[in-house]
């Protein structure tokens, strides 16, 4: 064997050795339980402040230009919102009547309300996004130093965003409910039917997810509001999740699923609330 060939063989063996080592690293990383795998944690902790700075500057610059470009539309927007507020006030008064009626009937039936309150939360800012097109991850600027743990629930005032998937020292990675790897126990508010809301590769690109595995007799219609059922133990029950937009039949023609639009506008989300501890009120 010539010297050149031997040299090439040595290089090839080095790359092959590194590939084997990476297979071992992949295996070890899947075993990392609460905090992120050590290499990921270290690299992420160094890079997250830079991501934060870039995102803050980009948001600031983007916001300024949006303000300039959208100035013309503010008058029309103002009129539209005033009309919307008037309409919502009417709806609120009607809803308040229903609430009082509901309270009275619940009292009559002596039902114990199952209320959840969030004992400890922390607000976090989005500082980055997943680097590929396969997953719907967000990088937040709070980590284990702030008390964040894997599987903590993530919310905004509109509803459920998802859960914490990985935690580093000063960052955490959240996976949204539209991610193909996500599944949430859900309940239809109107009918009480329970099902699973899960991410779907095709729907994810449209900012949607789907509700599957619901009973044949379930009377679910477009417009129904969904909330978390609490089944599975990760998500607390009663958190608003999304709205059914349509009912579809799958490719086999045997089962139905509902297309769900999350209440939270994931694309526009810049801040979220990480629920560090949930307390169930008696």
């Amino acid at each position, binding site marked *: 064997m010539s010297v050149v060939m031997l040299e090439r063989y040595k*290089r*090839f063996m*080095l*790359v092959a050795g*590194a*590939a084997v080592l*990476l*297979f071992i*690293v*992949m295996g070890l*990383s*899947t075993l990392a339980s609460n905090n992120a*795998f050590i*290499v*990921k944690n270290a*690299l*992420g902790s160094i*890079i997250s402040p*830079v*991501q934060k700075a*870039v*995102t803050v500057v*980009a948001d600031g610059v*983007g916001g300024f230009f949006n303000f300039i470009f959208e100035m013309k539309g503010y008058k029309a927007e103002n009129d539209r919102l005033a009309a919307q507020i008037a309409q919502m006030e009417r709806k609120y008064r009607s809803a308040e009547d229903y609430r009082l009626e509901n309270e009275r009937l619940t009292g009559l039936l002596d039902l114990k309300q199952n209320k959840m309150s969030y004992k400890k939360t922390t607000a976090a800012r989005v*500082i*980055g*996004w*997943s*680097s*590929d*097109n*396969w*997953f719907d*991850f967000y*990088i937040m600027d709070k980590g284990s130093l702030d008390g964040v743990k894997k599987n903590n629930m993530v919310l905004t005032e509109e509803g459920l965003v998802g859960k914490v998937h990985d935690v580093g020292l000063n960052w955490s*990675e959240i996976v949204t409910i539209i991610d*193909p*790897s996500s599944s949430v126990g859900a309940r239809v508010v109107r009918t009480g039917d329970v099902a699973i809301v899960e991410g779907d*590769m*095709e729907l*994810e*690109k*449209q*900012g949607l997810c789907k509700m599957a595995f619901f009973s044949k007799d379930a009377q679910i219609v477009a417009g129904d509001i969904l909330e978390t059922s609490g089944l599975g133990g990760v998500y607390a029950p009663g958190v608003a999740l999304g709205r059914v937009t349509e009912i579809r039949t799958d490719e086999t023609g045997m089962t139905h699923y509902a297309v769900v639009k999350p209440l939270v506008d994931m694309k526009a989300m810049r801040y979220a609330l990480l629920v560090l501890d949930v307390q169930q009120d008696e």
Partner: protein
Amino acid sequence: MDALKTVKISVLIFISYIIQTTLLHSLKVHSIIPNLLVVVVVCFSLIETQGLVSAVLGLVCGLLLDITGGKAFGLSALLCMLLAYFCTVMSDKFFKGKFWVSMLFVLIAGFTYELLYYFLCFGMWAKANVFTSLIDVVIPTTIYNTGIAVPLFFFIKRLRLSRQ
């Protein structure tokens, strides 16, 4: 690789990574962002003559991609390292970094990366339909990657990272 060349490519990798995980999300086309780091790895590897240097660069870029993507840490590193090594060996043996052949290689390498990523993350576990994944993610990402590879290829050459 000399020190200046190492510093230049390190800065390029770092900036590309930050852009990919922050600013590029404002430039999504049909919910797709280009895989900037994969393009950097492939362009560099097609110009570089030493397979081992390309493999190390692929490994570093892949590790960065693993921080903010995927479920198994090391998958992108493995794919990027092997692709980089393969691109350099092929380029050095057959076409010596010629532009049009290089662009064809960016297309093939980008497609291979996304397809392998799909099979190892989803396909193996039957979690996503292969046609949906090809049409919604693999093909659009490959086209977007090839589009940005054109200026990036010349930029990397101008940075004097090449043998010329």
